[in-house]
Structures are given as structure tokens and as C-alpha cells.
């Protein structure tokens, strides 16, 4: 039943700089756990890189992409760094945000102060984006050390990683808002993220997909991130950069708005 005294949950976001103390709170917790967090962030992607890049790569040889044939390790590295950004942002905006929102009631405490829910959701979104960026920095460091690519254009991987992180964080927060428990997130990973991982050209070129699947996967956010990042590893400028950024921005804005509406609904009771 609609309540005359209550603005619609779909009202435009009311954002202010009050998100900053909430972001700082997460930063302070994370600083205490940064080292183990760093190892976890680097460990898994490194495992993929070594096992598939060097192991499988030796059998695969060179892969055609962006008008040239590149070693499989370069192909995989450029894709898996996007995958890491996706996973880091998603984990943070699902499991960690849910802990703060539902289990620890951290958000409830914050809402008794002059910080409104919209700013809390914004802070969580930016925080998960930051975690993605952190992950990208760490892995890029390892990739540079392994001399997988030394292109100076790689510096652009950082802002792209942040944008991708913000996008996947916004998407995850939609599901966070609807979750009743951690189990729910398993479906998100199994039904959405894992298929996307295989359809977005992280592990093999999308040219291997049937034509219609290529057309559809053109519009996936992970595809956009990979299409932006991979050329940089090959010391090229990405083609259609504006389109890929627009795809990420569209997912980010639409998802954030939906996440905000669902979260407002959840907190109204």
C-alpha cells in the first residue's frame, strides 16, 4: 500500500559527502587485515595465471586477438585481471556488505546518525569499487614482475579497473538488498558471474562462440572491461572505447538505482 507520507523508493538518489565517513570506516577495518587480504587477492588470480597461462598456454600456443597472434599468457592475463576486479567487487558488495548490513547491524547504527541510507549504499558501492582497484593494482604488479606486458598504456588499467569494480559492485548490491542469507549469493555467482566469465572472452576469444552468442555477449559488462583492457596489454588503444565505457556506465547507473530502491524498501519495513 502506498503511503502518502513516504517518498517512492524509486525517488532519485539523494547523495552527499556523508558517504566518506562510512567509506573510512571500511578502510579502517580493512587496514587491520590488509596483508592477508592482499595475499588472497593476489593468490587466486596468480594460480589461474600459472596453471592456465603457463600450463595450458604451452599447449595452446598463440591466440588470435585484436589483429595479431599473442601468447596465451598475455591473452589470459588481460582477461583475468578484469575477472579479478569483478570478483573482488562482487565479494565485497555481497558477503562483506551483507555482514555489515544484516549481521552486524552496522548500517542500523549509522542510520541513527546524520548519515542517510543513500549515502551508506553509495559508500559501500565505492568501497567495493576500491577493493577491485586494489586487487587490480596487486595483480598488475605481479604481471609486470613476470614481464607479461610492459606497455606504458597499462597505467590505464587502473581507472578501467575502478570503473569495472564500481559497475560490478552496483550489480551485486541489488542482490545484497534482496538477500535473506549468505546462501543466496551462491546463486549469483553460479547463475550470473560464472557464465559471464566464460562468455566474455576471459579464457578464450569470443570468436569461438556462435554468431548470435557473440552479438549478445557484446553487451555484457565483463566483455566491455576485457575489450578495454586487452588492447592495453598489446600496447594498443582500445577500439570503441566510448561504447565499452558507456556499457559499463549504463550497468553501473541502472544497477545502483535499483540497488538503492531495493535497499530503501528493505529498510522501511
Amino acid at each position, binding site marked *: 500500500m502506498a*503511503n502518502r*507520507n*513516504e517518498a517512492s523508493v524509486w525517488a532519485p538518489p539523494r547523495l552527499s559527502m*556523508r558517504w566518506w*565517513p*562510512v567509506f*573510512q*570506516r571500511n578502510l*579502517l*577495518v580493512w587496514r*587491520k587485515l590488509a596483508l592477508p587480504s592482499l595475499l588472497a587477492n593476489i593468490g587466486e588470480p596468480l594460480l589461474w595465471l600459472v596453471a592456465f597461462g603457463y600450463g595450458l598456454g604451452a599447449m595452446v600456443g598463440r591466440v588470435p586477438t585484436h589483429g595479431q597472434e599473442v601468447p596465451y599468457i598475455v591473452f589470459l592475463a588481460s582477461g583475468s585481471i578484469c575477472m579479478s576486479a569483478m570478483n573482488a567487487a562482487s565479494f565485497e558488495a555481497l558477503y562483506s556488505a551483507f555482514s555489515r548490513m544484516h549481521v*552486524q*547491524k*552496522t548500517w*542500523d*547504527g*549509522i*542510520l*541513527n*546518525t*546524520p*548519515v*542517510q541510507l543513500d549515502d551508506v549504499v553509495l559508500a559501500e558501492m565505492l568501497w567495493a569499487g576500491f577493493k577491485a582497484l586494489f586487487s587490480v593494482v596487486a595483480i598488475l604488479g605481479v604481471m609486470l614482475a613476470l614481464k607479461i606486458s610492459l606497455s606504458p598504456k597499462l597505467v590505464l588499467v587502473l581507472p578501467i579497473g575502478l570503473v569495472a569494480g564500481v559497475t560490478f559492485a552496483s550489480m551485486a548490491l541489488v542482490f545484497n538488498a534482496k538477500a535473506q542469507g549468505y546462501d543466496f549469493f551462491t546463486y549469483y555467482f553460479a547463475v550470473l558471474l560464472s557464465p559471464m566469465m566464460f562468455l566474455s572472452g576471459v579464457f578464450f576469444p569470443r570468436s569461438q562462440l556462435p554468431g548470435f552468442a557473440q552479438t549478445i555477449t557484446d553487451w555484457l559488462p565483463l566483455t566491455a572491461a576485457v575489450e578495454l583492457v586487452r588492447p592495453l596489454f598489446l600496447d594498443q588503444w582500445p577500439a570503441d572505447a566510448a561504447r565499452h565505457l558507456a556499457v559499463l556506465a549504463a550497468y553501473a547507473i541502472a544497477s545502483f538505482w535499483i540497488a538503492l530502491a531495493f535497499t530503501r524498501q528493505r*529498510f*522501511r*519495513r
Partner: protein
Amino acid sequence: MTAAPPLLDVQALSKSYAGTRVVDGVSLAIAPGECLGVIGPNGAGKTTTIRMCLGLTAPDSGGIRYFTQPDGTALEMPRDGLAIKARLGVVSQFDSLDPDFSCAENLFVFGRYFGLTRSQMAERVPQLLDFAALGHKADAKPAELSGGMKRRLSLARALVNNPDLLLLDEPTTGLDPQARHLMWERLQRLLAEGKSILLTTHFMDEAERLCHRLLVLDHGRKIAEGRPRELIAEHLEPEVIEVYGHGALALADSTLAAHAERVERSGETVFFYTRHARPLMQALEAHPQLRTLHRPANLEDLFLKLTGRQIRQDG
């Protein structure tokens, strides 16, 4: 001289969930320096009323005004929510302390939500920890604290912005007597400093000890309001004799009942409410096998008279 304008003035607040009225036309006001207690059985609408006062739930109708000025202007919830919360202290029913932070960090981080600077907090945190009797626990995590310590830390956290008005939702539920007394002592200290408190509680001794005025809610409605002693005098006979033991229940229908203005039964116990206890006590001497307790009527009697002795479905 007119009374100072109220810090919180709630008019005819109503709220329904799925067609059920959980709050039905509740009005209340808190004067500066006053402690107002809201009591009522589970599901009476206490927490929903507080949630509306905090802007967490929108009322279907009614007005919530804070900090009325002498010229009559006031801050309104939800319109001025952030300005109001900047001046409120809130302790909710369940602790929302940050488990990853020490006691001191919990306070520092919370101060930032109010826009307080590090240097302001550096001065304030030790005072707040002392106030909460947690000076020795500054570096302890909440998981290392007892229930009473956690509640006191929550109270200290609600004081970071030096609020004029505190909203406390069942601040001592689940605490042992020592912890409860310490909490009471701290709340009394805050009242002595001139702060105002809105408090919900299930403990009638707490309500009687702390609250200047009480509001009894049941089924979302206000069913009584007034000073604790006056409410008891208004609704109850001054003395109660409780009788229990084998054969006690039969006394309720015996000639003894004529000595009492009112007789109630609950389980194996009979309650005689009377203005003149002596004749009844003398008559009870004929039943030495029964145990009797003669005491003044208290808030618990009032509460049970107004809201009934039966257990609620969700109780």
C-alpha cells in the same frame, strides 16, 4: 511563566502494517530535562513508535516535531531528519557495535558520522569511556566485553555528539542486576546534567526509578499517562496482599474476599488489593500453611491491571 517548549512533540501518530494498526493515534511530549518511559507488552507499538520518531519508518498520519523554539518553529521528522539526528543520541534494542574495532575506535568512528574531527574526538573519547566505566577497556574488542559493558559502550557511543535528547529502546534488557544498576546510575547522572530521555522498558522497577512520567501503550493505543506514583494512586488500591500455597485459590471466593476491594488470581497466587490490609492480615492468620506477602501496590500491579495477565500470542 509558561513551560519550556518540548524537545519532542508527537501528535496523533498512526501506523498500519498489512491492515493491522500497530500504532493508533499516539501522542507524547518530552520537556527539557524530563525522562519519559514508554511501557507496554510485546507488540504494543513501542518500537514502531521509536522507529517513526527516528524517521526509519514513515507514519501513516500524525506529526513528529523536535526542538521547538520559543517562537514555535520546530524541526520536523522526516523533513529535517539529518538536522534532528545530529542532536539525538540513540541506543537501539540490539547492539550494533563494530566487532572489528576496539571500544575507543568504536567511539572515534561513530564521531565521524557526526562530522566530529579527530581532535574533538581525542578529547571526548576518554571522557566517554570513563563515563561508561570502560576506561580500562579502551583497547578491548566488543566480543571481550560483558553484556553490561556492551550496553554501556552503546550508551557512550550515543553520547559522542553530546545530544540534548536520548532515545533508548530497552537499554537494560538481558543485563544482570549489577549491570542494570550501573546503567541506571549513569542514566540518572545524564538526567542530572539536564539531558532528556525517552525510554522503553519491560522493567517496572526501572520505569519507576528513572522516569518522571510514564506512558502505557497497548495494542498501539495510549491507555494511561502520568507520573508513576500518581498512576498507581489513580488506578490501584494502595496495598496488596499476595497469598500462595495449597488452598490459596479457594480464598478468592471465601468470606476473606470481602476485606479486599479487588481480588485477582494468577496461577497459584491470589492478589488482594485493599485500602485496609490489617483486617485481611488478621483473617489470614487462620491459614498458617499459606504464604503471604504484604506490600504496597507498585507499577507492575498497574501494568498488569491495565494490560491484563494473560500471555500474548507473541509474548
